[in-house]
């Protein structure tokens, strides 16, 4: 007997994702799809996906997509939005992509006040390549390139990108959210919607950092991974609005 246990979210294509159990990418995709649907923007949205686990985001979210070279999504998005200011343009980048190899591109996109939205997935590790240390890996956190835990003396402390980028005038709105429970899930949804709406008002760069899980590379069960986001990650990366300026 066939039983439907799951239907694709609004704004999502009817295909299974390749993500690991307990990974939050799928949830963030679904939130983006829902919000685009709600804003009636699926026909006009252009997403830029990163190099990393979300490289196939364009196969899942039901709008047009470009796949960028590692870290270069903000430059690609600049080319898209400047030539097509009427489109709703967003990048979707992980922490290795945005905070490491693409640090220059995101800094300058924000500096110029590029009027697109960044969805920044911070899971404190390189997911696709198998769990190496990221610029966002917490002090003491173990990874395949920091087997004894991240050592401050050797690697410094992890970077808070939302705060760093918010020092620049071009950043109009930055919020850090997580998906560890339903209350935070709704806050995340609201933040994504607000970022997209502000973008269309042309106020400047809008940025949503999502603290996410990587149960596979963290070596945790999905519920434990969610708890770790809520109890440990969010201590170092405080949740909430980091910056909001009027037009």
């Amino acid at each position, binding site marked *: 007997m066939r039983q439907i246990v799951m239907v694709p979210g609004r704004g999502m294509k009817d295909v299974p994702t390749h993500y690991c159990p307990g990974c939050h990418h799928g949830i963030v995709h679904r939130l983006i799809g829902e919000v685009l649907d709600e804003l009636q923007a699926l026909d*006009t949205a252009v997403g830029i996906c990163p190099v990393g686990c979300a490289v196939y985001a364009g196969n899942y979210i*039901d709008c047009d*997509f470009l796949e960028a070279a590692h870290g270069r999504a903000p430059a*690609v*998005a600049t*080319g*898209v939005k400047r030539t097509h200011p009427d489109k709703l343009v967003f990048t979707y980048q992980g922490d290795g992509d945005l905070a490491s190899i693409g640090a220059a*591109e995101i800094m*300058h996109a924000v500096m*110029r006040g590029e009027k697109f939205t960044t969805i920044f997935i911070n899971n404190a590790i390189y997911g696709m390549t198998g769990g190496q240390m990221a610029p966002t890996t917490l002090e003491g956190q173990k990874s395949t390139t920091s087997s004894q835990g991240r050592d401050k003396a050797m690697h410094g402390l992890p970077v808070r990108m939302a705060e760093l980028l918010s020092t620049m005038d071009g950043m109009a709105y930055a919020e850090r959210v997580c998906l560890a429970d339903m209350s935070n899930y709704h806050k995340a949804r609201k933040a994504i919607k607000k970022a997209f709406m502000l973008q269309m008002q042309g106020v400047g760069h809008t940025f949503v950092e999502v603290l996410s899980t990587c149960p596979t590379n963290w070596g945790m069960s999905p519920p434990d991974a969610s708890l770790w986001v809520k109890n440990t990650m969010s201590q170092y990366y405080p949740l909430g609005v980091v910056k909001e300026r009027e037009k």
Partner: protein
Amino acid sequence: MNKELWKGNELIAEAAIRAGCRAYFGYPITPQNEIPEYMSWRMPEAGGVFVQAESEIAAINMVYGASAMGVRAMTSSSSPGISLKQEGISYLVGAELPAVIVNMMRGGPGLGSIQPSQSDYFQATRSPGHGDGHMIVLAPCRLQEAADLMADAFDLADQYRMPVMILADGMIGQMMEAVTWSERPAKPMPPKDWAATGREGPGKTHFITSLRLGASDNELFNNRLQQRYRLIEREEPRHEAVDCEGADILLCAFGTTARIALSAARKLREEGIKAGLFRPITLWPFPEVALRALASQPSVRAVLTVEMSAGQMVQDVRLALVGSRPTPFFGRTGGMIPEAGQIVEQVHLALKEAQA
């Protein structure tokens, strides 16, 4: 039609706009700075987009974004900056996106010099960045030709959905010459129905990507690319042959060096040596069939390649002639320019060796 005096770099910028380019992204580097400077005021006037990028890497990725939206987009740089763009060019190839890239070559390696050079020939004509890709590479030797080739570059890029490089040097960029703007009818181009300008209904999205994770899928894509390259090799080679019929010796040179080689050929004619100039205009595809035909004339005793490099195009000359004629080489490197007198000496030497 009126003749106008133009500086090379500014001319190339203006020609791009007249060819329908509506997005320019660049980063300062000598000797091509007049291109972004000109674009910074002229492009907005033409209703297009100008962004001074934070790096050459960002600039080529902005081109990727604009091109994926169906806009005629370009960037320009000089040798060290073009090295930084290699990643982006490979992605343009992999995503089948049209783009025009201008390289006003300077002496290398490393930071090198700012004087003219042709030492990026290998980088331009073999495979840009990683992977098995190609760019069509066009090499102007006069400013009139540079203006005309800019229009061709955008057409070729759109026709074959691939990056096209204008490969010139600091001399071409900095010199001034009289130019006539030709009013030529726009060529019919294939529709850009692949552009990511919005989905065509639920589930009908565009996804511009160079990722083909399955090796067999990726091989199929590569096969398709190679088929296109074979077509281009048949259809698009271009060259100019000056006094090659019945010549004793052919001088093979492109761009600035071809101008000097032509002076040398004229001096040689005065001496009674029949020297011809074979000038590839497309460096990829290399006009090997035409070169082979001219070099195989019984009168031709040698083909001397002259470059502002340690010898790069000469490899294509040797591949084309496969040992059927002596193929000596003369080059200056580092930003130094060959003199006509030096080329004449090399011809004497080559003819002597061919006789021996």
